[in-house]
């Protein structure tokens, strides 16, 4: 009977999750293609940035607690896999035959559960009682705050149920038990001493089912929360751009046109296909990687916290760019599904969500991309929107238009003739 109930809840969980993933897949299908290569280097960067959490430590205090929660989740996930197998097959602790490995997994899982409880208390306290500047900002709607608190509460309940599970298991099987539970063993004597075996079994089963159902619930809340980064961060780091941050990708369509313009005899005319829009205006102009970036963002705000424009009071907030992208995609994809390519709601990502003023404030200093713990690349997307503004709308701030004119007319961003390039030589021997 238990197995059948378990199977049904598991199938519901997977079904709902598959539905969410199908919607996301559709969103990805609206974006532009971009090639991925260099798999070896990607494994290295994933081990370094995602698994070893190197970038999260750039904020040492918050970093250490995050890393503990993350590493704790990894070992505890092994235990969760065991619970799913047990639930389906009716076994109890099926992995216990793996000997020292099982001891290692259960012991580290047990210790990490309590470390996570402490970390979550600290994180929650920090959110509720300390006013951390990077947790605020125009893009931080009340939803973001509740989102954070809901996730923290669920994680707390997950860990409390795991602790209860370990403590009651130890208390029941004191004489002979599988695995190691260093902290729970200590706590068992103080909490569950004197309970009858019937009561202990009830507590054990209650914690077991609470834990597994919370996992199922959490997994299905995540795709609609900023905490989806639990699933998307590692792939996002794995797929991050490997070029130096200073690099800006080329626009081959422009190259084809210019080559034809400069050398019409020797170059083939650019193909007369439906012209692709230059740069990014709407969410279907972004690459799939830009969109994955937006799903990997958990709104920690380290980008904005280090943005020179934001620090000095300009409207630009790098985090907002990706919060906006995710929000607009959600809205846009619903319309596209209903009305197809003719969908039009009088809004676009650029202008309705992100203003030109924000984009022009960027110094492309790459502090945001350097800081981002999951390797989101903000400046690349900002630049693609600037490209749209200039190439499709010809709307740039007046200073930049003057600079363009100077480069066109005299090959320098300032108004000096090429002959003057040698003027400095007259000071060489002074």
């Amino acid at each position, binding site marked *: 009977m238990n197995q059948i109930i378990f199977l049904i809840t598991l199938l519901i969980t997977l079904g709902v999750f598959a539905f969410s993933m199908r919607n996301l897949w559709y969103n990805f299908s609206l974006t532009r293609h971009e090639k991925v290569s260099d798999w070896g280097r990607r494994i290295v960067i994933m081990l370094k940035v995602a698994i070893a959490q190197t970038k999260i430590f750039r904020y040492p205090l918050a970093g250490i607690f995050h890393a503990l929660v993350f590493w704790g989740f990894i070992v505890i996930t092994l235990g969760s896999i065991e619970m799913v197998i047990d639930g389906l097959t009716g076994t109890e602790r099926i992995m216990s035959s793996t000997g020292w490995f099982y001891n290692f997994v259960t012991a580290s899982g047990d210790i990490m559960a309590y470390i996570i409880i402490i970390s979550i208390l600290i994180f929650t306290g920090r959110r509720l009682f300390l006013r951390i500047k990077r947790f605020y900002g125009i893009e931080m709607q009340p939803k973001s705050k509740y989102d954070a608190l809901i996730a923290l509460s669920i994680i707390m309940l997950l860990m409390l149920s795991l602790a209860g599970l370990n403590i009651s298991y130890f208390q029941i099987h004191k004489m002979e038990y599988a695995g190691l539970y260093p902290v729970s063993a200590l706590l068992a004597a103080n909490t569950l001493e004197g309970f009858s075996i019937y009561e202990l079994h009830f507590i054990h089963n209650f914690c077991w089912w609470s834990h597994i159902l919370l996992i199922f619930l959490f997994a299905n809340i995540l795709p609609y929360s900023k905490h989806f980064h639990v699933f998307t961060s590692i792939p996002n780091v794995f797929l991050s751009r490997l070029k130096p941050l*200073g690099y800006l990708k080329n626009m081959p369509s422009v190259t084809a046109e210019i080559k034809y313009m400069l050398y019409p005899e020797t170059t083939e005319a650019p193909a007369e296909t439906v012209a692709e829009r230059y740069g990014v205006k709407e969410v279907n102009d972004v690459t799939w990687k830009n969109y994955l970036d937006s799903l990997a963002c958990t709104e920690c705000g380290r980008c904005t916290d280090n943005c020179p424009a934001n620090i000095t009071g*300009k409207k630009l907030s790098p985090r907002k760019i990706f919060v906006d992208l995710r929000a607009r995609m959600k809205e846009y994809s619903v319309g596209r599904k209903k009305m197809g390519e003719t969908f039009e709601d009088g809004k676009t990502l650029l202008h309705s969500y992100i203003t030109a003023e924000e984009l022009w404030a960027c110094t492309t200093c790459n502090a945001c991309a350097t800081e981002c713990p999951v390797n989101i690349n903000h400046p690349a997307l900002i630049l693609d929107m600037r*490209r749209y503004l200039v*190439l499709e709308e010809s709307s740039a701030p007046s200073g930049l238009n003057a600079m363009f004119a100077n480069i066109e007319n005299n090959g320098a961003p300032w108004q000096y003739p090429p002959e*003057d390039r040698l003027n400095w030589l007259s000071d060489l021997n002074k």
Partner: protein
Amino acid sequence: MEQQIQYSVPIMADLAASGKYPEYLFWVGCAGAFDARYKKVTVAFARLLNHANVDFAILGSEETCNGDPARRAGNEMLFQMQALKVIEILNQYQVKKIITCCPHCFNIFKNEYPDLGGHYEVIHHSQFLQELLDNGRLKVDKQVLKNQSLVYHDPCYLGRGNNIYEPAREVNNALGTTNVEMPRNRSKALCCGAGGAQMFKESEPGQKEVNVERTEEAIKTKAGIIATSCPFCMTMITDGLKFKGKEDEVKNYDIAELLYQAIFK
């Protein structure tokens, strides 16, 4: 020690006319050629190249903007027009190695010109000067600047853009000055405010200018010299010092100027 040497800067076209192709192209850059303050850096660096007997030449009046500010401002058309022109000129002189003082020029040649068919070994002057010091082709008199204190400001396109933080510091460490750091340094360094074509436009409304925020941080270190290695950073920091009324107490020099002073004065 006042040198009697006659400095000379060959022009690519002149050398090519007699069939000569130097090892390095010194890409002066627009700021290096036109900015009144930054021209002094160009002079100092050219003198150092002379002194170290480097085989180099400049393009002179054939040099033209490599399109970086246009690309950063979103004008891909104009950038690529310039880039294809520049690649043609560089091919004509069989250029293989480029030295430049400008991190923006450095970045675009190194990282972005390959996409358009321009492949070069690109060296920033901080890297080149470090090399000249390391192999003894330049020797510093540590007495000259020994009573000075110095703080270095990282340019974004060298630092975060290309992960180059140490060569300029190595050069500064050779000077004999007392060197300090700002709280935000290396990959945590705050931008001067000029990157991404900000140099050429008014900033958006805000509470403060970025260059003022950065200059204040530098002033707080109490160093007498703010060392930079980028023409735009120099403009921004020098303006920041003027804005704070500190231009008499604190001086802003490029690392090449400091090295030149330490060798020749």
